[in-house]
């Protein structure tokens, strides 16, 4: 049957356009139920006994939610308990228009087989399609369409027998509900239904708070000005009265925020917002419209630290006002910044937040405040009956809305992450807060793994070079299970050396475009936390089939050079191969073999050859101007049973480390050149931009304080001057300087060669570079493998590989994931450091001043690779006299002057007064400054720990 759909639409230029579309109605759309005998469907989604214990519906039933229920209660729908749900096409389309993130989540649920969610294409079904009546609004029409579909379902299911499942409409709209009841449909409100579920009371907490009046706790007093409607905001932005920008709450002051307004080209401005009224319910990361205040009302950013620490309830606003006043004083004209107020929200950027519950003082109360881990997010009011159980747990909460008369936004409980302070929980929190995908791999992903037992087939052998006879070995850190590189070296008849780098052939197992590939490209990288690894690819691949373990046959992608004894490359070749590693060594083991003159086996000789070449390569590289930078990396000795850190150790570097690194660099550079030659538009490369000269200020100033000059004109000059910068009697000085230099650098990034013209890698002093050598833990390497495979004719290409825009989008994701994984790694180290110091109590250690700030010094303790801040001013009492000189930079505290690189003694302790934000506290012991430094404390008990407020 054919229907024509005609409607008018406003075009972008403001004109009105008539659009005529065909609309076909079908009679081959099935209901998706197991019970049904009428529909000729091949597979069914909805189960026969769709039973869930409920007071209201004690018979099997299918739920049919309307659009608003899906939009607001997606958390409930996601619960594994809720199954057998029919999502109508009308609902799906409306959700798609209204909210992209919820649409994505709904699609995920629909794809999950255990959830038994079925999409019914009602708009194209002959019996459920309805036409919009004259005078009917689009929303009313859709509501009616939903009711008609529910009606059809109930009639249709009745045909299968009276004891069969029934269709139940879930709606929160009173009008819709009444109309549905009129036409004899089973209809419930979402709350009603969820509360009726026996034995699952915790689901109630996941209900989003509806926005109707009775749910509001506070008095009817209006606290906030109204948000303008979107149409008015758009007009305002066009005419320039409003500015659009991203709202960034201040980390230190809950009454202050800035809005970053992206202007044309370079001229972006920041608008300051102060006071609750002006912040007007915006939350960190929202896109908002702001209106600038008249110039005489402009303010300076306050330097006060304010945390919202009050106990629930909306008390008088007077206290708030006082605080605001306190902030506003002493603003001299120069420091004033453009100030404004939020007039509307263009786009909310809410995500579920991790944090903890502050239970209400009244024991029976069900309304509580929730404090997010991120200080920039305001506290959220939630309703829960399990407050006592959740009190000491980390939980996730989603925001539902922020009415005008409520001091805090309303939200609902999503799920519990576990006990606070627990290692598992804290790891979960830091993974969530850093947006690291860490769920278990889905069935769809695992289905693309090779079937075990796996072996190399004759077909594989036919297209690969057989290198099993070579003496290949791998050198890795101890405990490494994902070995992605192995090396060999042998002397050829002509006296030259043949060196091979063999990389796990991950792209053989991960084929482009399948679920496994998509998952890996989304994860981007393996994240290494202390004592935990979040794999990019399932373990079967990462630790077994792809891992180049010793004495098993493995597929590899080899890069083989012929070199003369001066390490000049005579010939380079790439090939897919099969190898059989003869040994997997640790760095220390390899070092021992090289040093032990009595050993003369093949492996050892191969290692010596590699080591010799590596030294030459390294020298050549340094001559070209590569930088050797330094950063302290710590390693925890983890107790094998409790998994608690028992000792800290900075990572040691051996000759073999640099040997492996040297060949990896060489392979990466050779491959980068090859893929760029072959694919000049779509090669995935990695660049490291040269930092702007101003970045080096700190470094040159620091060196000057010791009477040394650092040249920063080029990487080579920098490397040379770092080499000669030494101070007698201060052996650690050079390392400190290199640590400082590291801080001056830019971030290296992936990019697509067709989208950029600057390829230079500053740190390695290489004109071109990429990542090829770790495909098990980096997705970029997989792409590079695929490009190289196409370049040597070993594999076929696919569309996305040669599309530079897609490639570039992928690079952005990889860079983001990479950055986040580093942050997560750092956070994990910080957390373990805290655990360590918790168990060790108070320690006195020596350290060096790394930076001097206005009111503090930052101290590095080499023994732990730990950095901490010693503050000199305090909140309540008058602090010591501070004189800061920016030129030095030096800081004079009373009589003592602190300079960069000074040696100081500090005590280290753990400040756990705030469970969510535990931190390491350092206080000064030596030099002794009266009123500032603290007496040397020997050991515990921590209860008596000296307090220096900071």
């Amino acid at each position, binding site marked *: 049957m054919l229907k024509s759909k005609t409607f008018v639409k406003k075009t972008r230029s403001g004109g009105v356009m008539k659009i*005529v579309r*065909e*609309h076909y*109605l079908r009679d081959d759309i099935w209901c998706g139920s197991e019970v049904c005998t009428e529909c000729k469907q091949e597979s069914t989604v909805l189960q026969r006994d769709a039973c869930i214990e409920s007071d209201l519906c004690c018979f099997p039933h299918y739920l049919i939610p309307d659009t608003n229920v899906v939009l607001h209660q997606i958390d409930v729908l996601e619960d594994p308990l809720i199954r057998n749900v029919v999502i109508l096409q009308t609902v799906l*389309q409306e959700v798609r228009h209204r909210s992209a993130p919820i649409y994505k989540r709904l699609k995920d649920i629909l794809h999950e087989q255990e959830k038994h969610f079925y999409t019914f*294409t009602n708009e194209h079904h002959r019996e459920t399609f309805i036409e919009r009546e004259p005078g009917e609004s689009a929303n009313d029409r859709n509501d009616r369409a939903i009711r008609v579909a529910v009606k059809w379902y109930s009639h249709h299911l009745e045909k299968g027998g009276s004891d069969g499942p029934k269709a139940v409409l879930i709606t929160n709209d009173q009008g819709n509900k009444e109309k549905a009841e009129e036409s004899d449909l089973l209809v419930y409100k979402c709350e009603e239904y969820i509360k009726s579920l026996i034995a699952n009371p915790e689901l109630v907490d996941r209900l989003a708070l509806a926005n109707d009046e009775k749910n509001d706790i506070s008095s009817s007093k209006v606290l906030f000005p109204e948000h303008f409607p979107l149409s008015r905001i758009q007009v305002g932005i066009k005419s320039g009265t409003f500015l659009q920008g991203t709202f960034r709450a201040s980390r230190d002051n809950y009454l202050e925020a800035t809005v970053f307004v992206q202007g044309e080209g370079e001229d972006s401005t920041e608008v300051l917002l102060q006071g609750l009224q002006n912040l007007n319910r915006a939350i960190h990361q929202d896109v908002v419209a702001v209106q600038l205040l008249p110039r005489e009302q402009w303010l300076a950013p306050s330097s006060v630290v304010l945390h919202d620490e009050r106990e629930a309830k909306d008390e008088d606003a007077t206290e708030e006002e006082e605080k605001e006043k306190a902030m506003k004083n002493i603003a001299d004209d120069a420091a004033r910044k453009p100030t404004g107020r939020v007039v509307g929200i263009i786009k909310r950027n809410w995500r579920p937040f991790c944090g903890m519950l502050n239970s209400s003082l009244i024991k029976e109360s069900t309304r509580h405040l929730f404090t997010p881990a991120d200080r920039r997010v305001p506290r959220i009011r939630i309703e829960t009956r399990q407050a006592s159980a959740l009190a000491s747990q980390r939980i996730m909460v989603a925001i539902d809305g922020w009415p005008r008369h409520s001091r805090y936004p309303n939200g609902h409980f999503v799920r519990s992450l576990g006990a606070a302070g627990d290692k598992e929980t804290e790891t979960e929190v830091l993974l969530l807060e850093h947006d690291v995908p860490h769920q278990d791999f889905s069935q769809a992903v695992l289905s693309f793994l090779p079937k075990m037992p796996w072996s190399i087939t004759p077909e594989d052998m036919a297209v690969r070079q057989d290198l099993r006879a070579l003496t290949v070995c791998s050198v890795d850190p101890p405990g490494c299970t994902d070995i992605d590189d192995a090396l060999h070296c042998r002397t050829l008849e002509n006296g030259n050396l043949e060196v091979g780098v063999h990389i796990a052939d991950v792209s053989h197992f991960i084929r482009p475009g399948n679920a496994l590939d998509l998952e890996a490209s989304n994860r981007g990288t393996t994240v290494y936390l202390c004592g935990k690894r979040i794999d990019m690819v399932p373990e079967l691949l990462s630790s077994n089939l792809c891992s180049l373990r010793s004495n098993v046959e493995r597929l590899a992608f080899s890069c083989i050079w012929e070199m003369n004894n001066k390490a000049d490359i005579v010939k380079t070749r790439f090939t897919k191969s099969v190898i059989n590693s003869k040994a997997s060594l640790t760095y220390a083991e390899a070092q021992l073999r090289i040093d032990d003159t009595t050993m003369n086996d093949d492996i050892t000789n191969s290692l010596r050859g590699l080591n010799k070449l590596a030294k030459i390569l390294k020298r050549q590289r340094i001559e070209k101007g590569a930088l050797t930078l330094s950063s302290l990396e710590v390693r925890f000795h983890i107790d094998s049973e409790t998994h608690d850190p028992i000792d800290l150790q900075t990572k040691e570097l051996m000759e073999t480390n640099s040997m492996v690194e040297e060949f990896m660099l060489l392979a990466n550079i050779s491959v980068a050149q090859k893929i760029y030659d072959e694919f000049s538009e779509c090669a995935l490369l990695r660049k490291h931009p040269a930092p702007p000269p101003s970045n080096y200020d700190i470094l040159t100033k620091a060196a000057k304080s010791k009477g040394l000059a650092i040249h920063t004109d080029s990487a080579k000059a920098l490397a040379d001057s770092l080499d000669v910068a030494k101070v007698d009697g201060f052996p650690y000085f050079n390392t400190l300087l290199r640590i400082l230099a590291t801080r001056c650098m830019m971030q290296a990034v992936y990019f697509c060669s067709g989208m950029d013209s600057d390829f230079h890698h500053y740190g390695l002093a290489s004109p071109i570079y990429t990542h090829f050598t770790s495909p098990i833990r980096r997705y970029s390497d997989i792409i590079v493998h695929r490009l190289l495979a196409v370049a040597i004719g070993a594999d076929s290409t*696919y*569309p996305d590989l040669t599309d530079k825009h897609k490639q570039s989008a992928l690079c952005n994701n990889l860079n983001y994931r990479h950055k986040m994984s580093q942050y997560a790694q750092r956070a994990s180290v910080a957390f373990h450091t805290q655990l360590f110091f918790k168990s060790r109590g108070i320690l006195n250690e020596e350290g060096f001043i790394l930076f001097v700030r206005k009111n503090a010094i930052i101290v590095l303790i080499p023994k732990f690779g730990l950095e901490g801040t010693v503050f000199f001013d305090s909140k309540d009492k008058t602090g010591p006299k501070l004189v800061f000189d920016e030129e030095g930079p030096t800081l004079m505290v009373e009589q003592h002057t602190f300079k960069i690189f000074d040696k100081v003694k500090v005590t280290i302790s753990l400040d756990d007064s705030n469970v969510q934000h535990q931190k390491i506290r350092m206080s000064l012991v030596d030099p002794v400054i009266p009123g500032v430094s603290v007496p040397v404390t020997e050991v515990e008990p921590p209860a008596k720990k000296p307090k220096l407020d900071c």
Partner: protein
Amino acid sequence: MAGLELLSDQGYRLDGRKAPELRKVQARMGVFAQADGSAYIEQGNTKALAVVYGPHEMRGSRSRTLHDRAVINCQYSMATFSTAERKRRPHGDRKSTEMSLHLKQTFEAAVMTQLYPRSQIDIYVKVLQADGGNYSVCVNAATLAVIDAGIPMRDYVCACTVGFVDETPLADLCFAEESGGGSSLALALLPRGGQIALLQMDARLHQDHLETLMEAAMTACKGVSKVLDEVVRQHLQEVSVLTGE
């Protein structure tokens, strides 16, 4: 607002068709008495009229005369009311000229021109309402008109436009699908022999996908040919009843 979802997860397109399904085709032959052949076709909301004159003596410049076969002269035009916004120029713009040329090439491949040396065949097509696949619909209309004129052809020429969305080829695109991004390909086929009369695509497509797309296009063209064949037979029956044979 999100763009249009051209193909839903359940496999339905915007208008409720599945990926390989054609739009509803309705056609009539012999709609005008004055011309030698004529036909009217509706493919969904795309409607076109084709008129054929000839074969007749060369008109206009005699220099274009070919001594071994007939010259085919095509003109494509769109009615000013055929689109959502009124068209200013019904024919003679770049697009129409190109389309005329494509039609000419298509029919030179299909009509047995060698039977009519030193003569000329005129084919005029006019799109009355445009909703995607204009070229294909015009070819189908012209085929019917040529048959109506009694000019021998090697086979029906059937054309269809296919697009490529989410790794799936979509047959017989409507306007929303055509303009919704993605590449589309127009194919004119002589279905019995499987020979290609014209193949046109001006978007980027990876070569790996070309084969699947071509296959889908061929199937769609064969579908069209079945419908056209029915129309012709139906028409013949009516005509023979009228003439009393």
